[in-house]
C-alpha cells in the first residue's frame, strides 16, 4: 500500500482507500489498496463508477489492485456496482492488475457475477499506461 500521506485526490487512509487518475491519453487508472471501511466503499461506488462512465471508446481502464485485500460485504457491493456500470460503457480495454491471489479470485468472481467477464481481463504485472 502507498506509504505516508495521500494527496487530496485520494480517498481513504493507508489502511484502505483508492485513487482515480485520468489522463489525456485516454487511460483511466484506478489504484486500490487495503481493506475498505464502509465509508470508503461507498465513496468508491460513487466516484469509481462516475469515472468509468467517462471512458472513451478508445480508452483503457487499468485497475491496480496489487495492494488490495479481499473485501467484506460493503467493499464487494462497491465493486459490483463498479463492474455493472461498465456494461453500458464502450471502451477498448479493461485490465485488473493484481497479485494477491485471493483478492484476484474475489474480483474475478465479482466480474463474472456482474456479467462483464468477457470485457475485463486480469494481469500479473502493471501495464504500460501512456501518459499515466
Amino acid at each position: 500500500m502507498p506509504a505516508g500521506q495521500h494527496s487530496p485526490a485520494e480517498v481513504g487512509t493507508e489502511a484502505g482507500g483508492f485513487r482515480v487518475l485520468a489522463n489525456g491519453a485516454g487511460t483511466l487508472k484506478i489504484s486500490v489498496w487495503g481493506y475498505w471501511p464502509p465509508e470508503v466503499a461507498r465513496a468508491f461506488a460513487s466516484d469509481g463508477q462516475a469515472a468509468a462512465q467517462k471512458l472513451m471508446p478508445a480508452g483503457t481502464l487499468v485497475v491496480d489492485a496489487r495492494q488490495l485485500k479481499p473485501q467484506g460485504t460493503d467493499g464487494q457491493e462497491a465493486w459490483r456496482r463498479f463492474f455493472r456500470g461498465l456494461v453500458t460503457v464502450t471502451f477498448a480495454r479493461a485490465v485488473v492488475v493484481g497479485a494477491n491471489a485471493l483478492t484476484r479470485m474475489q474480483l474475478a468472481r465479482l466480474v463474472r457475477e456482474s456479467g462483464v467477464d468477457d470485457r475485463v481481463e486480469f494481469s500479473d504485472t502493471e501495464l504500460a499506461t501512456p501518459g499515466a
Partner: protein
Amino acid sequence: MGSAEEAAAKAINRFYDALEDLLRGRGTASMAEIWHHNDYVTTAHPFGNWARGWTEVWANWEEAAAVFSTYRGHDGRTDPIGGITELKVAVTGDAAYGTGVYKSTLYMSGGPLLLSANCTNIVHRIDGVWKIVHHHSDQAPPDWQGQIGKMVQAGHS
C-alpha cells in the same frame, strides 16, 4: 500429553474440521465459532496475503467459502478433502502453538490437485476456552493457485 495440550490440540483440530466444512460447501458457521473475534487475530492462506483483525480475517474466510462454492469434486466423495498431519503442540500459559503439515487432494476436471503445506496455528485460552487467534499456511505453488483461479473464473471445478 497434558490436559492443556490436549485442549489446545483439540482447538486446532476443530479448525481443520471447520475448514473441511467450508471446502465442502457446508457453510462458515463452524469457522466463525472456532476463532476468537478480536483485533489481534491474523491469518494467511495458501493463496492469500496477511489478513489482520477479525474483520479482515473473516472477509478472507468468506471469500474462501465463495471460491470453493464452485468446487464440485467432493460430490459423492467419502474421504476427507484434507487434514492436518504431524501436529505438534506446545503450551505456555494461556497460549499454545501447533505446527503441522496440511495435506489435501482436490479432484479437478484435469485430475487430482495435491497440496502439502506447512502450517502454524496459535490458540489462546480466554475464560477457559481455547480458540484460534492465528493461522498461517505456506503459500501454495503457482500452478496450484492457477488451477484454483481457473476454477473460479470457469465457475466450476
